[in-house]
């Protein structure tokens, strides 16, 4: 009898653990609708999902890094620097050739390649250089942003108008009523889920995160897998950036500020352990949406003093983390 009850309690606990973020998000949505009926409108839902796309795509990559037991603090600065360099490249190329569509396509490809290259550099410094990921990426956090500030003279790097006209549909157009960034977010999330749960690479990532020594003894090429997780995250940052650039067509030293914390928070709120080993892409997606829904609701109402916005965010994050805490 006692065992049965324990069993049931434990399974309730793990059930709550799995759906904690979803319950949190559902409660928030109910609260949002009660506070302002426009919250439940399709337009608002699409606004929220579109702005979640950047952080969400980065969070999917971050999920792999965190599950493998690593961390990347540089993603916000990296996104800002990639955006700046891509804009500079496109502006320069526009002077050479009169094919704006080709220029934009090259710029978008460059964005992903550059991200992957930055990630690769992180991975190599961490594995070959044997430096803690926290330190490597804390270093590049400063380096990336400083170079952006240098290239922009501290101001904004702005995309030429002619290119902006060609590029802006990438952010502003909808397919079947759903904006392109949301589609990309969905595809990245599905791909992430498949890679994590259905491939050898995904299993190795989880194995390294739960016990690196055991993984090494089991003949997993730990260094290679780690380098790949950082490169994957870098590519995700590149994808997020290629969607970000057409929104405002500019990059400045304030671009991507604190994105790293939002992405890490989305992963952790979504039920992945910061110490690595296990985690879920679906949870990460819900976590990312949850974070942007909070600020959306705060913007749609004025019952709470604007001075307390950050506090509300903090309370919600802690509550959701409590709901899905490990037994």
């Amino acid at each position, binding site marked *: 009898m006692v065992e049965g009850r324990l069993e049931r309690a434990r399974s309730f606990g793990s059930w709550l653990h799995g759906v904690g973020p979803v319950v949190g998000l559902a409660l928030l949505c109910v609260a949002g609708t009660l506070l302002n009926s426009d919250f439940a409108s399709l337009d608002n839902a699409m606004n929220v999902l579109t702005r979640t796309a950047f952080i969400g795509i980065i969070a999917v990559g971050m999920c792999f890094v965190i599950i493998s037991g690593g961390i990347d603090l540089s993603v916000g600065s990296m996104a800002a620097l990639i955006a700046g360099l891509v804009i500079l490249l496109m502006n320069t190329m526009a002077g050479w050739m009169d094919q704006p569509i080709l220029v934009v396509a090259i710029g978008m490809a460059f964005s992903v390649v550059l991200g992957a290259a930055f990630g690769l550099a992180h991975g190599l410094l961490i594995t070959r250089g044997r430096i803690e990921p926290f330190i490597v990426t804390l270093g590049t956090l400063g380096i990336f942003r400083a170079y952006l500030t240098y290239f922009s003279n501290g101001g*904004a790097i702005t995309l030429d108008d002619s290119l902006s006209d060609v590029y802006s549909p990438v952010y502003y157009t909808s397919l079947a009523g759903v904006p392109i960034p949301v589609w990309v977010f969905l595809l990245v999330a599905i791909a992430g889920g498949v890679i994590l749960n259905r491939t050898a690479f995904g299993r190795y990532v989880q194995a390294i995160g739960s016990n690196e020594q055991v993984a090494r003894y089991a003949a997993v090429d730990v260094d290679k897998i780690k380098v790949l997780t950082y490169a994957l995250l870098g590519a995700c940052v590149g994808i997020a950036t290629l969607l970000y650039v057409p929104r405002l067509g500019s990059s400045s*030293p*304030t671009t991507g500020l604190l994105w790293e914390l939002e992405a890490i928070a989305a992963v952790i709120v979504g039920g992945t352990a910061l110490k690595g080993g296990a985690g879920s892409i679906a949870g990460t997606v819900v976590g990312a949406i949850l974070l942007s829904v909070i600020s959306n609701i705060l*913007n749609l109402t004025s019952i709470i003093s604007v001075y307390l916005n950050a506090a509300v965010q903090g309370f919600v994050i802690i509550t959701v983390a409590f709901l899905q805490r490990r037994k």
Partner: protein
Amino acid sequence: MNIKSIIFGVAASVVALGAPAAAFAQNKVNLGVAIPAATHSFTAGIVWWANAAKAELEKEHKDLKVTIKTAANAGEQANQLQDLVTANKINSLVIFPFESAALTKPVAQVKNKGVYVTVVDRGLTDPSAQDAYISGDNTAFGKVPAEYIAKALNGKGNIVAMRGIATTLDNERMDAFNSVMKDYPDIKLLDAKYANWNRDDAFKVMQDYLTRFKQIDAVWAADDDMAVGVLKAIEQAKRDDIKIVFGGAGSKGMIKTLIDGKDSRIQANVSYSPKFIYEAIKLTAEARLKGEALPATTIVPSVLITKDNAKDFYFPDSPF
């Protein structure tokens, strides 16, 4: 050999002989400039204008030496003040303090060593630590747009506002805006949320305003960076009820839009140029070269910029 070089030669030999140089000290100015590092477009403008002042003034005055230090935080700035005094041996200082309270004591120490101190923009908590104070006009920064919007809407309509980062400077602007609007009971300020002087945050806040309010007549974006985000959000929502988007500070992009008349919603701006660091350096250097003092307080006025006078506020080479 002309007279100037004779005087210069005499002066040089006097110094070389080790004679008391007190008679010349008055006219030799070794000016230190301590400003925040270029972390966003406005401070980038500060750095650019400070360097412009150095280049121009050093060329003009042989007896002037300008040393510029940029700091990323208040602690670094305090250290730089010590370096300027001990290593660079400055006798005049122009400082844009990172924070008022934290820098008051360090600046007071500099002044106690006989350095002439001009404080720019953010006042110190103890005014006796400074010789002169030069600042922008935050009250007018809020008042000018409020008056413009109220007049353009004929005293009737719905407006929304953006705020920067919670600081006294931001409060001064908001209070000035509200105090004008008090006289227009038919103008409703629907909400004023923080968007951190940041394009992306302004984009999100504006999107949500547009979802929430079906009729908005004017937006006080309170900063040209935020105005960029606001315009993009309006464009995306395809809303045509907004007649005015009023930014602020006069960035080169927005002034250009104003000159070209490219956007009917950008009708005016209010000046709050990082150029005041240039004025502060120039005024201090020239006064000290003559051995004079500056007035205790100089306010660089914030004025309404419209299409007619926009050319005077357009500096295409500045990063801001």
